[in-house]
């Protein structure tokens, strides 16, 4: 088991965390998705400071005060920092990167160190990294359709927004990242504080997103899903494959055999 980027989605985070800790030669903490305070504080914060200086400070400022090139980081909260780093949206590499879920640049341990470092900027606060799991799928399905499907599509494939932006597909999001996105509202996405969606409801939503992601055998039981993009590709298939085949048949039947 190595730190291989193509490890299956489910549990990739846990594996990455284990591998990251192993590389650093630290005692293996319990592989819980939430940041655990067990690793030595000083080591983490040193590493965090170092990484922050290398990769973040040039845009976000020495103490997260922000600059013309990057927004303020004081008070955004650990959930936001963890979301941006663990989905590979930060640090920036390309222009379109903010919209897409990518392989994270940093290891799990480094991300934790960075989260701790940014959280230490005064005044602190902001949404913590949620612990997500164990939700109820049917209730999650209803909540997902009320709160998420307009942008992320009922099928979880995302949707087009204004000005060349789009709401991303949810197929790579981990439960924790879903919880973080719900609480933080990254980018154009609205945030849903506990007054709007309770922790239990977020668990339910994450459980249903997991169905959309991983329960494909049952959700796409009709066959080739056509990217779950709805009637447009269906029409294309009907014309190209369906009518195309019948056209060939008609040609062979109608052509006069001499």
């Amino acid at each position, binding site marked *: 088991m190595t730190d291989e980027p193509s490890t299956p989605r489910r549990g990739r985070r846990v594996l990455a965390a284990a591998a990251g800790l192993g590389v650093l030669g630290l005692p293996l903490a319990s592989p819980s998705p939430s940041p655990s305070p067990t690793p030595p504080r000083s080591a983490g914060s040193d590493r965090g400071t170092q990484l922050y200086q290398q990769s973040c400070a040039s845009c976000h400022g020495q103490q997260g005060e922000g600059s013309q090139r990057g927004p303020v980081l004081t008070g955004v909260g650990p959930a936001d920092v963890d979301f941006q780093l663990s989905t590979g949206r930060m640090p920036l590499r390309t222009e379109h990167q903010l919209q897409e879920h990518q392989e994270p640049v940093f290891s799990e341990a480094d991300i934790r160190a960075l989260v701790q470092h940014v959280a230490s900027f005064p005044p602190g606060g902001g949404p913590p990294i949620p612990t997500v799991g164990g939700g109820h799928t049917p209730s999650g399905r*209803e909540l997902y359709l*009320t*709160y998420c499907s*307009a*942008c992320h599509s009922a099928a979880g494939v995302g*949707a*087009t*927004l*204004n000005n060349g*932006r789009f*709401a991303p597909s949810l197929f790579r999001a981990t439960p924790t990242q879903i919880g973080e996105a719900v609480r933080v*509202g990254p*980018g*154009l*996405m*609205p*945030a*849903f*504080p506990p*007054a*709007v969606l309770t922790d239990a409801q977020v668990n339910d939503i994450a459980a249903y997103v997991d169905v959309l992601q991983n329960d494909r055998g049952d959700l796409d*039981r*009709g*066959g080739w899903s056509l990217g779950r993009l709805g009637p447009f590709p269906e029409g294309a298939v009907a014309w190209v494959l369906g009518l195309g085949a019948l056209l060939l*048949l008609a040609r*062979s*039947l109608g052509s*006069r*055999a001499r």
Partner: protein
Amino acid sequence: MSGEKGAVRRIRLAFGVTVLGAVGFAVTYSLGANTQLLGISLGVAFAGLAYGLAAWGRRLLPTGGYVEQKPELVAPPRRRDLLAEAMEGPESPLGRRGLVGMLLLGAGSIGVALLFPLRSLLSFRKPDPVTMLRHTAWDAGVRLVTPEGTPVRLTDIARGTIQIVVPEGHRRDGDVPAFLVRLDPERLRKEPGAGRVGDVVAYSLLCTHAGCPVALYEQTTARMLCPCHQSAFDLNRDAAPIAGPAARPLPGLPIEADADGFLRARGDFTSPPGAGFWSYP
């Protein structure tokens, strides 16, 4: 002819494939009916028939080379005259113009009378269409609740969030869905026509173009987008349409916070929600 022999063998083979497909279908069905296997087996069964019949029709049966005469459909004028005479001759009832006229009037009046029950397609217990279109269940004092039925407090609406609301007790009405957001007063370019409670405003969720829910909220730009035809509404400008085919702003919902902090409507939308119609005020 060896070509013909080969064709016969191929056709027989194709029909044999059909039998295999049919058996496969029956077996798949009995074993739990996987949709893909059912489709393939049935498709193969029919494709075997199609191939075999096509080969049969093309290789073993004569194609083309026949001609059928196509007699003129038009009858000679004299025959047409006879038909006309038979129809309109002296014995014909059509000769009595007055009676025919009254008959047509009578039949027509039955026809018109029988149009009346079409009105029953819209129950008489319901108000007339224009009244229904102009009014919704929102009224002064009605509480705003989430689609799950939970009442909403002013303090629930944080900056950057959106809450879809319906009037209490009218969860499934088509014209009531609305949404609450908290605006950034510094970026507000036009004061909401329905007023606001603090920085919180409520608008109809239904696109003024074709009535789809404009449920795509871009929090940073304060825009609502429609998933159907890509209209966009700018909440900082009283929900004015800024892109796409929508021509009218989203109707505002006047709201207030009651003593317990729950949000209530102060009345109906500022204009009828959803698509426009002829008697739109």
